[in-house]
């Protein structure tokens, strides 16, 4: 009897993704505020530059529009991981970095035809940093400041997607919002005999819930429109500040609000295989509660994206069967650095996908090449190459019928 390779493959990918997750930082700009925003989507959505609010997906559970899950007929597991190489520049310095982002995971379970329950994990914002500076001190060895940041705000969505009629799908989501931002500074004296290090640490723990809704309408066979709404997230933030001296420790609790976000888009089929898509997404500037240093330095975040896809074909040679995806997006971050100068990310994207052998599912690959920030406007820029790998596997929920797979 031939052994089904999917569970083994899925396990390997999962382990690989989780193992590489916490390795390093995201964009260098993600040091600031609540980190770098991660948009929803698997490798396919990334390859189409997130222009996919109106693009249905019948094979994956990680999508830009949750309403799309209503098309899933099987239990579907999706996981996505992205890795990046970046070259960071300032007028004086450069640094090459390699980074991994936390994976996104989603499981979709059809309850009945056209009604799909989804649950998973996805990161909203993240940042990571580990850097040090040497200072000079008179009459003593030079101390070194070591800064560490670990930041991740994530959602655990519980979604229900429903195909209302053949052309309309809607979805609602309850999102459990959690996360933390941990900053730590350690001062130590390398080579200084008898010198102890001192540590200052701030742990901010975020907790809240939110809801979201989305709709996907096939207006015509080759025209679809979609919209998403992510309600405001009211986080309760527990802040613990601790030092090497316990008597200096302090705690505080406060509220942080992430304003609601809106997105809409359209997808047009030029032919049976070639589709154009476009999306616009925005969220108003959050109040800098807990980030007073960013007063008047936060702006609306806006994403505008365009994509073109040649969908896979059942016929022809290998190159003809695989899909091809291209896109471009421009994302204006919430962050202004310095004040008044927004941080802008511009990326060209490319991607393709492969059907999993011997069964339903796919492996999608995305490639992003772009730049975050600019030397002229921000004094720092980051040239980034990102490779994303997404895996979708499906399995019928019901007992297998004889003769099927």
């Amino acid at each position, binding site marked *: 009897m031939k052994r089904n390779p999917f569970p083994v493959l899925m396990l390997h990918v999962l382990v*690989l993704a989780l193992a590489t997750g916490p390795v390093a930082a995201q964009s260098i700009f993600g040091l600031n505020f609540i980190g770098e925003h991660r948009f929803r989507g698997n490798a396919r959505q990334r390859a189409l530059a997130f222009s996919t609010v109106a693009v249905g997906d019948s094979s994956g559970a990680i999508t830009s529009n949750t309403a799309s899950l209503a098309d899933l007929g099987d239990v579907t597991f999706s996981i996505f991981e992205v890795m990046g190489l970046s070259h960071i520049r300032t007028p*004086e310095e450069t640094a090459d970095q390699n980074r*991994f982002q936390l994976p996104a995971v989603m499981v979709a379970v059809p309850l009945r035809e056209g009604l799909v329950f989804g649950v998973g994990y996805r990161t909203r914002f993240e940042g990571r940093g580990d850097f040090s500076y040497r200072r000079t001190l008179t009459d003593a060895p030079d101390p070194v400041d070591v800064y560490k940041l670990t930041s991740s705000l994530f959602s655990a969505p519980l979604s229900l997607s429903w195909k209302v009629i053949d052309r309309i799908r809607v979805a609602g989501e309850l999102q459990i919002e959690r996360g933390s931002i941990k900053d730590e500074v350690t*001062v130590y004296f390398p080579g200084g005999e008898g010198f102890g290090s001192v540590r200052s640490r701030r742990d901010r723990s975020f907790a809240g819930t939110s809801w979201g809704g989305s709709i996907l309408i096939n207006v015509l066979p080759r025209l679809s429109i979609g919209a998403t709404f992510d309600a405001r997230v009211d986080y309760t933030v527990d802040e613990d500040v601790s030092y090497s001296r316990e008597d200096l420790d302090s705690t505080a609790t406060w509220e942080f609000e992430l304003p609601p976000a809106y997105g809409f888009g359209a997808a047009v089929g030029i032919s049976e295989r070639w589709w154009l898509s476009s999306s616009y997404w925005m969220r108003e500037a959050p109040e800098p509660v807990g980030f*007073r240093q960013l007063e008047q330095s936060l702006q609306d975040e806006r994403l505008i994206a365009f994509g073109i896809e040649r969908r896979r074909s059942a016929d022809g040679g290998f190159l003809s069967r695989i899909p091809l995806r291209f896109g471009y997006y421009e994302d204006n971050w919430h962050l202004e650095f310095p004040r008044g100068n927004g941080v802008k990310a511009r990326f060209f994207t490319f991607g393709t996908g492969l059907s999993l052998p011997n069964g339903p599912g796919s492996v999608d690959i995305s490639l992003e090449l772009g730049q975050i920030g600019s030397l002229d406007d921000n004094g720092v820029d980051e040239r980034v190459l990102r490779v994303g790998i997404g895996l979708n596997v499906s399995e019928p929920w019901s007992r297998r019928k004889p003769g099927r797979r």
Partner: protein
Amino acid sequence: MNARHLLILLMCIAATFAYCSSEPEGPVTKQFLDSLTYGVRSGDTRVDTFAVTASSISVPLGIGSSSLLRIGEIQEIVFEAILLSIDLSSGGDHAGKPVSRAILSLPVRIADTTLHVTCHELLLEFEEDDTITTIPAFDPVAIPDSAGGTERLLGLEDAEFSFDTDLVEQWLSLGEERRNLAIIWHEERDPKGFIEMHAQEYGSEPASFRVAFDDGTADTFSIDRDYSVASFEGEGLNIVGGVATRVYFQFDLGDLDERAMIHRSSLVITVKGEEGLGVTPGEDLLLYLTSDFYYYLYTPGSSNPLNPAFLGGTEVDRGSFDPAATQILKLNLRGFIPDVVQGKRTNTGLVLQSDLEAVRVQRASFYTVDADTVVKPYIEVIYSLPADFLGGS
């Protein structure tokens, strides 16, 4: 493409990225730090110094058990007398026998001169465990030699003292178990010098008392207790072993930032190498001891030197240095200053002593608080302030 090929492809992509090395982020993050956009900034790191008051404190303590006996002066440590206890029961019964000759033989091994001494009978017994810092009560009339003189010379060539035979005959006839003697350096101390000889703990060639009788017989009596009576006459800041002189430092940390997180705190003192004594010639040549000065620093249980708790307390640091080399010492105060700053411990000051003060004769001298700024003692505290976490609630 089958599943195995896919897996290999994914692994290769991940491995490629994992093995691409990252360079330090520090230089390129500097702008975020400098602009305060990144909401964390390390606190200042500072070096603060605090003046101290310092005084030498004498502690009643002597060295009874030692391999060498000493008389004379070395580095202002004065050994004014050697006490000897003759065990008269260690010989035979010689009561009533006329004595023809009595010799106290002293095994002098190191002498840089010949000292003038007198020999006296102690009025009380002594033990080596006693704390003897001054010569115990003695008969002011010196024991005469066989010729009736009382002034004696002690040196390498003059290490045998004859005793008046009538006196010794009297000692033996009284049947007492022991006689206690004090060999006292002449009060004029001229010439000065330093002499070392075997003590009974040395294990060979000890001091002895030999008596010859008119009937042609002789006997040797052992000297089973001996003691060097020492005192320290130097001025300034000194810690001295063998005569137990310690230095007491007091200071006020009132100006230290109350949020200080301390990396290191030190008692900074400067050794006056020319006044130090790491090893006596006898310890060097006969006992092969090193010149390292082992110190012990503690915070006393009381800030009152008259309180017995002052002599003990909590250890702060211990270590060693060369007392004959002029150098700046930074004695690590470890957890003491952080505890004081946080109110966990009362600042009763610091006491520095020889860790071998009951074992070895050593001296370390330090520049006083009246000395030049560069060399006078002080407390140094290197600390960082807590990081500023910007933003707040």
